[in-house]
Structures are given as C-alpha cells and as structure tokens.
C-alpha cells in the first residue's frame, strides 16, 4: 500500500464520530459572518446596515487576485457591520444578520436530484467557482479558483482529491465521502474539466475502508478516476506528502504542486464545487465535527457559516465538565480558542473538547539529541536545530535550515521525549523569517 516515505507519526485515530451521519443544524437567531474567511486580501462588504438579504446573496466581494467572495448564509436583515471576536481571539470585521425565515435566492436549485451533465466550459467553471466564494475546505482556506488557474508555461497532469483526513478525531470528510459520494464524483469531474486533465486520484487512508469500497464502486463507471488506498500515517493529508504518496513525485522546496503537474483539492471543496457549478449554490455552509473523549454525543453537523459555535456544542451535548481546552480543528494542527463566543467560518473543520488530563503540557526537559524529531519530520528538517536557533535569535541560520518549508504539522512536538516546545519555536522562527523575507522583497 502506498504512503509517503520521509518521516511521519502514528497518533491514535480517536475517530469517535465516524459512524454518525451528517446532521443539519437549525438556523441561529443571528448569524455573524466574518470577513476574514480565506487567505489573501479580505473582501469588501457590499451590503449596508438595514439591507434585506436572502440566503446565497453576495454580501462581500473579493477584489484582489487572491481573495474570495462571501455570501449570506441566512435570510434576514443586516443589523450591523462591526468588529467581533473571531477564532484568533482578536476582533475582526463581521457582518451580523438577524435571521427572518429561510428564503433562498431563486437562482439556487434546491431539488435533491443529482445533476450529472456538465454543461459549462472550462473558463465558465472557474468563473463560477470564483463567484461562489469557494475556498479550500481542508483548513487552509486558500481560494480555489486561484489553484485552478494554471500559470503559463506549466501543465497540469493529474488532479488529486484529498480524502485522507489524517488528523485524529475529525470525521467530516469521511462522512461526506460516504453520504455524498455521487455528488463528489461529479465534483471531481468538474474539477478535471476546469484544469484540463483526464486523470484524477482520490487518496483515502485505509482506516476508512467503507469509503474506499463505496467510492471505488462509483469510480468504476467514470473513466480516469481512481481511488488510491493509502497506509495510515500522519501528516498524509499535507499537499506535498499526498502527492509523494500517490504519484511518487517530490515538490521542490518553496514551490507549488503545479511544479510537478499536480493540483490537490479536498473532498469538501469538490462537493462545494459541485453545488456551485451544478446547483448554483454558493459556499455558505460546511460540515463541522464536534467531538472529544468526554463529549456526550460526538457528531458531524452541517452548519451555516456564521452560526455561533455554542449552538454546535449544545447539539453535541454541551461542554463536558472536565474540559480544559476547546480546539478549533484537530489535536495536531488545530489551535485552542480563548472564548466560545465565536462563529463558524469556512475553514472550521472541527471542534475538539480536550479533557483536563490531556490538555496540559508536560514540563519540558533538556534536549538529549536523540534525533527523533529529525527522523519523523515529513519535510526533512531538523526541528531541534531550528528550535535552538530561535532561542538564540539566529534567524539567518534558521532560514538556511529551510524553516519556511515547515507546514506546522506538529509531529516533532508530538514525538519529542523531552516534551520540548519545538513547534512553538519553529512558529516564532517562521514569523520572524517571514518578516525578514517580506522586507527584503520591498
């Protein structure tokens, strides 16, 4: 079975909610839609206080090249546009909508039938995806249309669909593949057409045997789509790792996947593309896994963007008493949030409630140069060395050690027997080196 070669760890899966069907959660009383939901320039609001909006209506327009549109996820009146707390803990501009009924735009096809025929041309598909404000739903929230526009001189050879979900606890992609397989296949075909390739691989780790079986059956009828079962290993869901695992090609340091002729998209993104192109439905809802060891009812919820996360937690049975930490995302790459008064955004893949005994860090001891972190680093870096350079404020050396290649998967901190805060230090170095590179570019 295929997998990437360099490094990797095996954290316990803890997929508590993998057999729970996706459940649509009710509408909130007010939806608070953050304007910072994707990488790149934040979009400009096109509605004002007091405007009536319908579900799917454009409320903020991204004008820059790397920027994406935002649509109303509920119908009602825009009550205010103000700074509100978001997942980072800082206050960012949000559009607040008071919900009145659930009136969708007429252009959106609400019928449940699956449209197989792809009528649009290549350019029209990309324009539609841009219009619908689709971003990478795996968590990085990079605007999808930018990834699909192949730069001149480059040629895409294959499309890779990321159904790996290597992050422990999270199950939203797994459920999507099981429940919406047919739509997913159509979405994959649309993406293939958009980048002009005839090969697509769906990479799934073999702990999701049911999804592999189901999608393989569906893929048989579609020429060019292959389901690739992968050996379970973290961080296989990383773009570069997945390309290595499936095609055995290596993306050079500092380059994008298109350098080796690959485009990688998440399964959630493929579904969103299907909905945008075939059903005219912009991206205004997503599946969020709410889970944790002591959570009463771990579940996968389909929530509108802007729903308060307290509603989602309530649906899962409330915050358990022993919870010390609530994490936005999975345990490896997610970030703990400092308040639960935040709202669902496009990049929120899961909410994890960690019990007290697991959330506290162990006191770090000295580095014993065991080189565990070097063995497991999937990018082939020396985490202990970079961490040391951060401590001695030697950013120039950290840059030479390719610190910017780090994707912050957290394998080094996970594996360190001395419990050293390796990833923390690498993040500091990344921030500082990033600043240096930006000033140099000016």
């Amino acid at each position: 079975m295929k997998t990437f070669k360099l490094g990797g760890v095996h954290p316990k899966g803890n997929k508590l909610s993998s057999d729970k069907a996706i459940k649509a959660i009710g509408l909130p009383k007010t939806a608070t839609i953050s304007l910072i939901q994707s990488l790149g320039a934040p979009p400009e609001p096109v509605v004002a206080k007091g405007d009536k909006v319908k579900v799917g209506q454009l409320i903020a327009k991204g004008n820059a090249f790397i920027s994406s549109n935002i649509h109303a996820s509920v119908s009602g009146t825009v009550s205010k546009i103000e700074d509100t707390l978001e997942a980072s803990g800082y206050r960012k501009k949000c559009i607040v909508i008071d919900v009145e009924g659930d009136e969708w735009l007429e252009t959106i096809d609400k019928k449940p039938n699956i449209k197989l025929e792809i009528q649009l041309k290549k350019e029209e598909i990309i324009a539609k995806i841009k219009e619908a404000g689709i971003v990478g739903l795996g968590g990085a929230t990079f605007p999808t249309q930018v990834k699909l526009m192949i730069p001149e001189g480059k040629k895409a050879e294959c499309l890779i669909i990321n159904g790996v979900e290597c992050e422990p606890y999270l199950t939203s992609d797994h459920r999507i593949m099981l429940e919406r397989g047919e739509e997913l296949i159509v979405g994959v075909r649309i993406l293939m057409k958009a980048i002009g390739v005839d090969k697509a691989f769906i990479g799934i780790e073999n702990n999701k045997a049911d999804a592999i079986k189901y999608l393989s059956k569906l893929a048989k009828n579609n020429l060019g789509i292959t389901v690739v079962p992968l050996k379970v290993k973290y961080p296989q869901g990383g773009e570069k790792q997945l390309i290595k695992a499936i095609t055995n090609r290596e993306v050079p340091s500092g380059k994008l996947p298109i350098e080796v002729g690959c485009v990688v998209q998440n399964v959630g993104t493929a579904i969103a593309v299907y909905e945008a192109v075939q059903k005219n439905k912009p991206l205004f809802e997503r599946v969020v896994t709410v889970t944790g060891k002591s959570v009463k009812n771990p579940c996968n919820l389909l929530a509108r963007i802007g729903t308060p996360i307290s509603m989602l937690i309530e649906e899962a049975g409330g915050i358990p008493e022993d919870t010390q930490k609530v994490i936005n995302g999975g345990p490896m790459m997610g970030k703990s949030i400092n308040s639960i008064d935040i709202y669902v955004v496009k990049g929120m893949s899961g909410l994890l409630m960690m019990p007290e005994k697991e959330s506290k860090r162990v006191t770090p001891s000295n580095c014993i140069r065991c080189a565990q972190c070097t063995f497991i680093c999937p990018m082939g870096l020396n985490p202990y060395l970079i961490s040391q350079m951060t401590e001695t404020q030697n950013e120039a050396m950290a840059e030479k050690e390719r610190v910017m290649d780090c994707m912050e998967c957290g394998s080094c901190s996970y594996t360190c027997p001395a419990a050293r805060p390796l990833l923390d230090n690498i993040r500091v170095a990344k921030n500082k080196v990033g600043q240096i590179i930006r000033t140099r570019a000016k």
Partner: protein
Amino acid sequence: MNTTILYAVITLSSIGILSAIILFFIAQKFKVIEDPRIDAVAEVLPGANCGGCGFAGCRNFAENIVKNESLENMFCPVGGNDVSKLIAPIIGQVAEEKEPMIAVIRCNGSFANAPAKTQYDGVKSCFFIHNLYPGDNSCPYSCLGAGDCVVSCKFDAIYIDEKTGLPVVDEEKCVACGACVKACPRKVIELRKKGKKSRRIFVSCVNKEKGAVSRKNCNVSCIGCGKCVKECKFEAITIENNLAYIDFEKCTLCRKCVAVCPQASILELNFPERKTKETSTEVVEEQK
C-alpha cells in the same frame, strides 16, 4: 655541538631581523591613517555596545561622530549629558544639553486589574503569544508579561513583577537605550522625559478599542472619555482612536488629569502623597 647551537641561533635571528625590516617597510607603505580622535572619543564612551544610539556599537558611534564632526542627533543614552560634554571638546563642538529619558510601561493590566480569562501554556515569548492570541486577559493591546523586554535589556534595568505580571523599570539602572521599546511586540513601552525628581505623569494604556469593549477586559483601560483633555490647561493631552496621550514636552506635572480620570488609567510616579482627598487609591498602591 656548540657550533650547531650557534648556527641555529644566528640563522633564526637573521631571519627574524630580516622579516622585521620587511614588515616595517610594508607597514609604512600600507599604513591606515586613522583619526586619533576616534580613539579618544571611544575611550570616553561607556563601552556597553547596547546600540541605543542607533549605531552598531560604541566604536561605530565614535567613528560617525568624528566623521560628521557634529553632535547633532548623536547622543549616547547611556552616558548622557556627561559623556556629551566630554566628547564635545574632542571634536571642537559645544555639547547640547539633553533631557534625560526613561522607559515607561504604558499598561496597567495587572492580574488584579485585568483578570486572566484563559491559561497560557507554551513558550515564554511575547512575540509568539502576540502572533497567537490576545493574551490571558483578552486585551489585544495589553502587556503580555512574558518578558521579551527583560531579555532585551542589557542593563538589567527591567524585571517582571511576580505579583502584577507587569514589567517594572528600575529608575537607577534604565539608560533609555530603547532596546525594550523595539523588543515589545505590543508597543507598550515608551521613552519619556524623566522629569524633575523623576516625577512623571502618563496614560498607562495603549488600547485603541472603544470604551465599552476595552472595559470588558480591563478595569483601568483608557476609554477616551476626554475628561482629561478638558481639565488640561496646557493642551498637553490629545485623544486619538479612543486613547488619550499626554505630550511630555507640554505637560507641567500639575496632576489635575490624574484626579479626573474615571478609569484611573493616568498614572503619576514619584509624587508626594496628596494631602486633601483620596483619589485613585489603586494607583498609589500600585507605586508602593
């Protein structure tokens, strides 16, 4: 036996003398003529190499002074006016008297004033925490208390008070080199005039949020109400982005603004205790 030693000594000494003569002439030929005043100036400088003057070390500072032959914008914050007076005759200038400065911490979000809402568990670096989240007290402008300023200080003049979680500047040791100002990711530290008898008045807050928002996180945040502006007769106080700022050039240290501030966010340092009424008791306690 004896001759062997003799030959060896003669050969080696002649090689030595020959080399010395060659080196002497080469040294004459390639002599770097350096202004002797550079050495004289460097001698006078404290030699801390703190970089507070804006140059790479004391020697570089001395070179630049001699090159420009002027003391304009050239000030050694460590040596202060005394050093300037010593440097001036070397380059034939008159020293300009400069007011001594000191670093002040413009945040009073102590554990008591801004209670922690979360518990941070990670690397002790303000730079890192600032990039991660607003900090334990949720104020996005407050001091983070992880001590980047303490690490940056070459004079051991700043330390974190365990009780308040805020940095404290040692007035005796601080030379106003500005290293901590650069190190602070939140721009909480400012260099201000030291003042007579080190008496200072300043707004101990840099929060630019609206009053209603900032008060949720901190009891002593500036809310930009403007009472101090009305009270000040010398137009020393301005309000920008919901935040008051006292211009230390105009301030006469009358202390009227301290009395009217409803949030007790204007601090007075090293003043004798007020005789009449008890105002801003918290502040007085803070000083002790």
